[in-house]
């Protein structure tokens, strides 16, 4: 049974509010009680979830490069240094061997760099992403805008909308992919903006869209429609 006092301490501990002495005292209680440890774990999860309530921000891509560079620069074990030869007669042979070794290492290194470059290109989402800027039509507020980051390979994307007021009751905004290989725009789902006219949503068109020329947002009946009916509010090509 966990006392109220222990629950108090557990909550403060999970939030990192205890001073070092209190921390140490509580940790000794923790080590003696599995029930208390379970409580702390659950409170930590709740504490971690609080981070999600912060307004959403995205770090710049350059930050990832910095971080990856930092971990890539960690010192690696160096090759053992050859011991000095006792006889000078071995020097030419040793130099030749070292030269061959160096050539081998360089060849391996070059192959490795090529592989890394290919992997980095394959892994770099930017290399596979097309950006679309959607601008308002006459039916939309002039400052409404949207940006789509579309990844054809994954057939999914992210749209961010700003300054687009929520539609009237009974209506919804719907996103469409305009694809050269399809007669009609392909639905990419209903988008709901918040009270500030902002949305950030990941989407996936209902059909394969391999030749997307543009994205558009229309005003449709609530819940969306299979085929575009309403007016286009925002549209843009890559």
């Amino acid at each position: 049974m966990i006392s109220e006092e222990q629950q108090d301490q557990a909550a403060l501990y999970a939030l990192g509010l205890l001073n070092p002495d209190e921390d140490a005292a509580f940790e000794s209680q923790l080590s003696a009680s599995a029930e208390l440890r379970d409580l702390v774990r659950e409170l930590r999860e709740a504490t971690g979830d609080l981070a999600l309530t912060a307004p959403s921000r995205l770090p710049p891509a350059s930050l990832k490069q910095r971080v990856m560079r930092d971990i890539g620069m960690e010192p690696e074990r160096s090759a053992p240094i050859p011991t000095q030869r006792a006889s000078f007669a071995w020097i030419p042979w040793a130099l030749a061997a070292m030269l061959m070794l160096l050539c081998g290492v360089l060849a391996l290194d070059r192959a490795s760099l090529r592989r890394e470059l290919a992997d980095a290109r394959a892994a770099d989402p930017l290399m596979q992403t097309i950006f679309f800027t959607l601008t308002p039509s006459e039916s939309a507020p002039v400052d409404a805008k949207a940006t789509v980051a579309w990844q054809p390979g994954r057939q999914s994307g992210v749209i961010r909308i700003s300054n687009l007021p929520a539609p009237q009751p009974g209506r919804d905004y719907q996103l469409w992919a305009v694809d050269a290989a399809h007669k009609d725009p392909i639905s990419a789902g209903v988008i709901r903006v918040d009270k500030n006219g902002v949305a950030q949503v990941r989407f996936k068109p209902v059909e394969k869209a391999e030749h997307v020329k543009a994205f558009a947002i229309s005003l449709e009946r609530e819940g969306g429609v299979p085929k575009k009916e309403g007016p286009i509010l925002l549209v843009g090509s890559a």
Partner: protein
Amino acid sequence: MAEETATAQQMADREMVARIGRGDQSAFSALYDRLSGPLYSLAMNMLGDTAEAQDALQDAFLQIWSRAGTYDPEQSSVFSWSVLLTRSKVIDRLRARGRRSRVVVGSTDDKETRTEAADASTIESATDTADKNDEAAHVRSVLNNLPSEQREAIELAFFGDLTHHEIAARLGQPLGTVKARIRRGLLKLRQRLHT
């Protein structure tokens, strides 16, 4: 279903951290893509400064890289572990600059946020952030449904880097009352988010 998804995600996170512990840079890259959005949001919310938030996030991820081998799944999920590491780095910076954080809680209409988000070029982070949006909305809703005095105490403790003594002083309430508010609020959060 959501619970199953969370469990599957947690297992995937643990696997990533285990690989990072073995020096796997691609796992580290994947974890960065998954977590950098919410962790950066946390750092920005507490520090209110782009450059400092980026530095704090960089420090946090370097610590994730170096400490992955010691991560204990019995103590916390990877997400919570990363949040606590990041928060600790942020608090180090707040204390280093000798002032308390700007507390910005629950504001989602920050134009700068949106502009920056629109300019963000890390699509992996973008998509993961989008994935997190539903979860974030749920947590925010649960938090907003707490009694206001409990929510306020928790927000000051988590985002404001205030001790319980400082919170009591700020709110003009007895220390015991503040402790009880934090405890009750956090227990309710736990109950509503994890049961």
